[in-house]
């Protein structure tokens, strides 16, 4: 292709995005667009899959049958989200096995939040309320992102996520209105999950390397700091409502800005976790790799069986 032809394609591509038309798998796209989307969609898929672990940790110990069933359904939804997202990612010309390989070798990341441990039942409430809440703030704009398969996957994901968030809030509310022991459990979970949830929305704007390009491609509509502010503004009244205290002494309504002011985030901790040294990074990755390695003979068996069946069918036809 001549340089001129590429320039034309690029211009046509940019025009499409500015007209809010979707880019589809067979359309021409700049290599960087393809790579950025593979990175983001796969990170998103990996987050769903790794995210099954901290919650899966409490399935066998859920305190009532109703909660156990709801938690199972939720974790199953997450596995489903992983499937949609891997499929969306595969439309960009990469296989699910390659994506797993990237996760298992640490080349691909997943959301830092899932490197925190779930220590009490209240963590199931905190994750639903805060972690899914922050995820929704991140993800709702993605329902309109420029890459069609990703946008369509996100429409389905977001519907289920907001259901999970309500469920999580309900768990917290029940605890906060329960016995003193239950309320203490809820407050402790909020204390441990609050700051990591704020970190989920990514580094501050001046430290975020991908923001500018992602805004151009409509992968992002608002900056990390704007999204974080939105999350805080929306969550503080919810905490007030159920009588829990946000663990931030600097948190205060700012009449002039029309937003909450909040204290400094510990970015050292964020980078420590992102670089693989959080409380559960090793366990999470080991669990995923272990499942994959232990499952190899099962996947081989399924392949061998499918081949034998295909052979038999062929012979029958002949």
């Amino acid at each position, binding site marked *: 292709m001549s340089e001129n032809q590429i320039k034309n394609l690029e211009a046509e591509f940019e025009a499409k995005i500015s007209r809010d038309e979707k880019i589809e798998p067979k359309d021409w796209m700049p290599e960087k667009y393809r790579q950025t989307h593979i990175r983001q969609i796969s990170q998103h898929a990996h987050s769903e899959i790794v995210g099954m672990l901290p919650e899966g940790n409490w399935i066998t*110990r859920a305190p009532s049958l109703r909660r156990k069933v709801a938690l199972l359904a939720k974790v199953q939804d997450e*596995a489903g989200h992983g499937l949609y997202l891997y499929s969306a990612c595969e439309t960009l010309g990469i296989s699910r096995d390659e994506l797993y390989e990237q996760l298992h070798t640490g080349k691909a990341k997943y959301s830092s939040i899932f490197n925190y441990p779930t220590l009490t039942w209240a963590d199931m409430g905190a994750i639903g309320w805060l972690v899914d809440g922050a995820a929704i703030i991140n993800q709702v704009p993605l329902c309109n992102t420029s890459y069609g398969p990703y946008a369509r996957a996100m429409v389905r994901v977001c519907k289920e996520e907001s259901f999970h968030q309500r469920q999580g809030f309900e768990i917290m509310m029940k605890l906060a209105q*329960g016995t003193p022991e239950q309320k203490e459990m809820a407050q402790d979970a909020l204390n441990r999950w609050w700051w990591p949830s704020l970190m989920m929305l990514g580094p501050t704007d001046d430290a975020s390397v991908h923001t500018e390009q992602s805004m151009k491609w409509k992968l992002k509509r608002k900056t990390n700091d704007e999204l974080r502010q939105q999350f805080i503004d929306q969550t503080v009244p919810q905490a007030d409502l159920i009588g829990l205290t946000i663990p931030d002494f600097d948190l205060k309504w700012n009449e002039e800005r029309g937003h909450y002011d909040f204290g400094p985030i510990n970015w050292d901790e964020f980078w420590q976790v992102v670089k693989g040294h959080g409380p559960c990074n090793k366990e999470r990755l080991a669990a995923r790799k272990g499942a994959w390695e232990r499952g190899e003979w*099962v996947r081989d068996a399924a392949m061998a*069986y499918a081949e034998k069946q295909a052979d038999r069918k062929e012979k029958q036809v002949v």
Partner: protein
Amino acid sequence: MMNKNLYNYILGVADNSLILGQRLGELCGHGPSLETDIALTNISLDLLGQVRGYYQYAAKILGGNASEDTIAFIRKERDYKNVLLVEQPNTDFAYVIARQFLFDVYHVLFLDQLQHSRDLTLSAIAKKSLKEALYHKRFSSDWIKRLGDGTDESHSRIQNAMNDLWVFTNELFQLTEADKEMLNEGIGVDVTQLKADYYNQLNDVLNEATIEIPEVKFFQKGGKEGVHTEHMGYILAEMQYMQRAYPNMEW
């Protein structure tokens, strides 16, 4: 006065689903593929959904402060009436599938009868559960074939699992006192009548899967009378922890 036989009968049915659902719940996030992970979680979810229906009914019979949760979380090991098969550990995927298959074939035959129970609540739960059990059976039968007729390794693993678990099958067809009473009243199922069909169906699938029928002369039993394997105490310690540590609270 409460109908003790009916209450015990319901536990005998529902405890199987609870303990198997609990075992499958342990696997969440650790399956050999995302698809099997979803499927096993889905089966667990179905089974626990069934349990809630049965226990809510049992709680009504028990009266007082009884609830589905007191029945699940406050009973002790000797009070559980599930068969030994369902409490066996998730040793590897072959054991999970073998256990599931051995249960599902029974479960479908059983529910197919229970839906004709004179007890309308049990009949309704059975009708709903039967649809789910048919799906479970299809999943586990398909995997029996894939593993049996897959690679040498998968063949030997599923054969081993089948050999080890076969000793627990015969218990499925033992009648308890509650079974006999409920049978007389047209409420319960005569499980002894399901046995021939059960082993025939197993034979068909295992033959197709090139798995040899285990030659077992001695069987294990006791679960229905609350005499369990040593696994049971650990399952309950984990499952009941919250209700034991924080009794009488709402969640």
